[in-house]
């Protein structure tokens, strides 16, 4: 007689609720990976999340953990305050590209540079999702958005910021990597890197930064499949998937 064991189930760190995310949005996928990492290390009960402003502000509705909601861009400063008080707890931030790379670029760079011992998740979908698809600091050259109707003109609007490369240049950073969740191979790598980012915090090796390339089908004006294809065809060529810095590999 064989006993049936579940091989795939909801992580305990995620609540049994439906998300408000649009069809084809990859926030849900990344939420699940973060939850799996918390389960993997058995730290759900010791974790404090810091939510940012944008579609991901509601992470406290989905994660079954304590959460502080930060003002737009300020999650790394809020997480600094939380982690300095709760030095033995696991703290992570979860920010979009407008939040982290535009209004909050100062807070992320300085928190990273101080080597604050939290894990930073950065979701790059090349647009402001919540506000309706305006140009983000990571919007690709030529990409049409609500505020770049003729396409991003780098001569006027500047260039997309490659955050992971920037972060890797800071001495306070222990891990900086860019991943994607657009196909099974990339998904497995993303899972591995996100776990590593938490491992670095838990084993007291400092600050870890993971950029996840993700879709925003609604604001890209694409269906979920076409949006997923765009990640491989347009985003990855500009934002290469790579581990840019990993002090544990030295």
């Amino acid at each position, binding site marked *: 007689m064989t006993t049936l064991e579940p091989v795939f189930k909801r992580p305990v760190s995620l609540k049994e609720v439906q998300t408000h995310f649009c069809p084809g949005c990859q926030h849900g996928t990344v939420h699940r990976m973060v939850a799996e990492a918390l389960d993997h290390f058995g730290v759900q009960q010791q974790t404090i999340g810091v939510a940012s402003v944008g579609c991901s502000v509601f992470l406290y509705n989905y994660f079954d953990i*304590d959460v502080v909601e930060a*003002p737009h861009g*300020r999650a790394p*400063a809020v997480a600094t305050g*939380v982690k*300095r*008080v709760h030095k033995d707890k696991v703290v992570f931030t979860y920010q979009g590209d407008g939040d982290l790379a535009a209004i909050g670029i*100062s807070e992320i*760079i300085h928190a990273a540079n101080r080597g604050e011992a939290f894990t930073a998740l950065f979701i790059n979908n090349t647009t402001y999702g919540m506000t309706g698809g305006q140009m983000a600091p990571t919007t690709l050259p030529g990409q049409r958005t609500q505020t770049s109707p003729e396409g991003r003109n780098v001569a006027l609007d500047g260039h997309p910021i490659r955050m992971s490369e920037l972060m890797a240049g800071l001495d306070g950073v222990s891990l900086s990597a860019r991943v994607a969740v657009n196909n099974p191979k990339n998904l497995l790598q993303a899972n591995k890197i996100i776990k590593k980012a938490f491992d670095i915090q838990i084993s007291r090796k400092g600050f870890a930064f993971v950029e996840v390339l993700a879709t925003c089908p609604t604001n890209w004006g694409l269906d979920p499949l076409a949006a997923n294809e765009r990640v491989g065809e347009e985003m990855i060529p500009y934002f290469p998937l790579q581990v840019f810095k990993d002090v544990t590999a030295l």
Partner: protein
Amino acid sequence: MSKRLFIKGNEAVAMGAIEAGCRYYFGYPITPQSDIPEYMSKELPKRGGDFIQAESEVAAINMLLGASASGARAMTSSSSPGISLKQEGLSYMAGSELPGLIVNIVRSGPGLGGIDASQADYFQSVKGGGHGGYHLLVLAPDSVQEMYDHAILGLDLSDRYRMPTMILADAVIGQMKESMIPHPYQAPELPEKDWAVTGKQGRSEQKIVKSLFLGDGELEAHNWKLHRKYELIKQREVRFEADGLEDAELIVTAFGTAARIAKTAIAMAREAGLKVGLLRPITLYPFPEKAFLEATQGCKRVLTIELNNGQMVQDVKLSVARDAEVAFYGRPAGAGSLPTPEELFEQIRKQIRGVA
């Protein structure tokens, strides 16, 4: 008995905060308050605390938000232009019902202005400052001793009501040295911080510290809750200093540094046989409305003195008896613009002559 010390106001406020258990300080250098972060950078590490020189005032207030949300006693300090930058965070802290101590060693403005003592940030402090309609609890020390005492009081009140507390001082109160006694902290009974994030640690419910309320009626209910809190502190936490009001022909009102100068002028006036009383608001929010109403049942003449062009005077006018007359004397701050006791004595004399 604690030993008497001769120290600066800025040191006293930092010392008081540490005495009351503040172990986290986040700040950014700006004159005339930099003695506070300097003191904290020396003293907090010795006590197992954390000092962070933040990359900006914006970051500092958000570090305070995070530390307060975690249940710790924490503070930041700055001076006017830096306090402007903190307004976003203060609004979020008020909305999230977080305690925390904010010290504003006010300098003159607007813009880069100057570094002289000013009271031009009165409106910003007591009327909300940031967006969304909220209040801070605002304390106005007028001595080095009160800088120490108010740091302790501010942290206690802030924890009791779950609202950010601001100490509104200025370059004179912060920079002058006076003798003071660092009384040991006696912890009052305070509500448990059962709202703080700690990690669930076996709890069934999550702790969520937030200011976003999107459900039907949720935000209105939240704002009514904040409103009730403000009404409650109006009943319970008003503080003021009153002297010689019983037979006064003129009530002088001023806070902070203006009150210190006014006290000398009042002494001169009494010496000259004039009946002058003092009503000094210590809490600027909640404002001592009743004290003004009661004091002006008898004495119908009030002189408000401020180091600005007239801000607190508006609250005085709203508070006094209907038939009381409120005069104002003030000068906008800047180098060489601090009024002298003689100057204020002259103003007092003018007001009294107006009566006669």
